[in-house]
């Protein structure tokens, strides 16, 4: 089967783009969850750069709309009432469902929740679709919430990069096609693969070498990411750099004891 090509991509970095909220439609500004608004903006940007309309949506998220889950539970515990909107949004696939409604995308709609490996899981998951389900829109997103600042110091050291101050809140969107396009960036992914007690660096090296025999494990090709959206930023950076060659983006989930790799080349 022909490797998928990335025909459009976009990112959103809220901390670095103070005016991103100007791109949120008026109807979403007051009541919709922040993570839905982020997803809407990054998808709008992605679709604006291509004439193609997606047939399917894959979302990649470690926690989904975490702030809405927290808000719903706080409502129950503090006042005995949780908002219906927060409950609906707390479901992991709420973003993908909202995107389907907003952009009229009626094909397969799956949400991959593999922690930091979620983007690789979603890219690998496109292999399970039929030709008629392409192009696929993949959205990688996670939000940073205040509660995590309280909890992170008490988490295990290997979980802190995923949840602590080190990672940048972001969203990334990619349009994946199966059409022949010699100029487009190609992408494939393997994993998540369970690694048990094997050190992550070693397991990632083996996985990368298996996916791209001979060179996959070269340190100069590899970059690590600690979140799905972090992996998305790296992927977007490679796409927009115009560079030839390839890059291996590796992720590791301490909670799932699993790793995954994304292989991207031009």
């Amino acid at each position, binding site marked *: 089967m022909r490797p998928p090509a990335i025909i459009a991509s976009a990112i959103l970095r809220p901390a670095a783009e103070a005016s991103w909220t100007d791109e949120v439609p008026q109807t979403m500004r007051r009541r919709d969850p922040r993570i839905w608004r982020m997803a809407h903006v990054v998808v709008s940007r992605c679709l604006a750069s291509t004439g193609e309309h997606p047939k399917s949506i894959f979302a990649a998220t470690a926690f989904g709309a975490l702030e809405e889950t927290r808000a719903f*539970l706080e409502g129950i515990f503090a006042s005995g009432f949780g908002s219906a909107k927060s409950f*609906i949004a707390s479901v992991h696939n709420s973003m993908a469902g909202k995107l389907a409604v907003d*952009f009229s995308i009626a*094909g397969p709609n799956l949400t991959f929740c593999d922690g930091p490996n979620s983007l690789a899981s979603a890219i690998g998951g496109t292999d399970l679709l039929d030709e008629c389900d392409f192009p696929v829109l993949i959205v990688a997103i996670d939000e940073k919430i205040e509660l995590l600042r309280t909890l992170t110091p008490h988490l295990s050291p290997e979980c802190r990069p995923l949840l602590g101050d080190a990672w940048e809140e972001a969203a990334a969107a990619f349009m994946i096609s199966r059409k022949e396009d010699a100029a487009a960036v190609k992408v494939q992914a393997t994993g998540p693969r369970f690694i048990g007690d094997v050190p992550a660096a070693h397991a990632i090296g083996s996985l990368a070498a298996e996916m791209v025999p001979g060179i996959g494990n070269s340190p100069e090709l590899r970059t690590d990411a600690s979140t799905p959206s972090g992996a998305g930023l790296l992927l977007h950076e490679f796409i927009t750099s115009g560079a030839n060659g390839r890059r291996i983006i590796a992720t590791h989930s301490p909670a799932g004891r*699993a790793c995954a790799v994304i292989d991207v080349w031009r």
Partner: protein
Amino acid sequence: MAAVPIIGMGAVSAAGLTLDNAAAAVYDGIDGLSLVTRFETGLKQALRCAGIDASDKELADGPAPNRTLALAVCAVKQALASIPRPSQLKTGLVFATTVAGITRSERFYERLLKDQTHAVNAAAELAFHEPTALAGDLCRRFGLHEFHAISTACSTGLHSVGMAMRMIQRGRCDLCVAVGADALSLLTIRGFAGLLLLDPFGCRPFAQNRAGTSLGEGAAAIVLASEHAVKELAASPIALARGWGASADAHHMTAPHPQGAGAASAMRAALRDAALSPGSVDLIVAHSTGTPDNDAAEIKALQAVFGNPPPFCSMKRTLGHTLAASGILEAVFAITALTDGTIPATGGCDIPDPALGAAPSPRRRAALRTVVKNAFGFGGNNASMVFGKV
């Protein structure tokens, strides 16, 4: 594409702790609901759900960090019990859940709101919060390799079967275990209650007086195998996974498309994938939550695809709505019904709603070759699977 043999199944539900002792209850459509006693719901009215009367330790046959995982372990253990697993066979996993570790996380957060010093327990209390943590633990326990953890609300479990079928068809693994599991949690009970989706008298799918659904908990696992693995293991396939359809309503976050357009699209895709015509379907195990709108939309979808629909039934009164588990749990009983030649009764439907234009079948014996299972969820997410006799 070639149909994929199913060589193992397991289920744990309010109808029974194993598949064998639950099938008769499901076929009879018995009332599986009982009062929730494991935790305080905080609701003014006592609530009946399809809970399971067993501890986490009993379910997992040992320690388990949370109830969803305990349920999943129980189902996978049954499904793999009679399957030898030579090391040269690669075994994948597609794990479906919506609540994952929330049963524990919500209690932790309640304590944290009262006393911030509880933050020191975060590492232990939240270690199994994420779906991927549960999937990883299943891999550790059962020697599984590559996996996907997915969450698409109430359609998730059925998607896990479709994805596992594709993983075999694409040659990504020799065996693939599809698992769906969800425990009853405060978050889901209060969320569904807040949306006025729960019937205080218990769900009555397709009935004239239906007024909402009833939640439940459970898990199911289905083991799919490549032809090569079937030969290698000298396995006797139970049934065949023949087609998967997936779609989105793209209409509303919680309400179904009034004409069932997305549901119909998923069923048509599954039949196309199976290379079967609608006329070859002998039984449909509907999603049928018992809410007025959902049941009406599903009947419209059935009529759009099948014209005059073949016999159909609902299992929700017996099993409850087990969210991410529901699609695969009911698929397991759809497959046993197929192999047993039984059309199950629809519990709770004493007087079918004449306005729907179609009524569920009573329990009866029938020669069945092909069964369709539907599962739909929040976000307008739709899944449909076609299973066939070997």
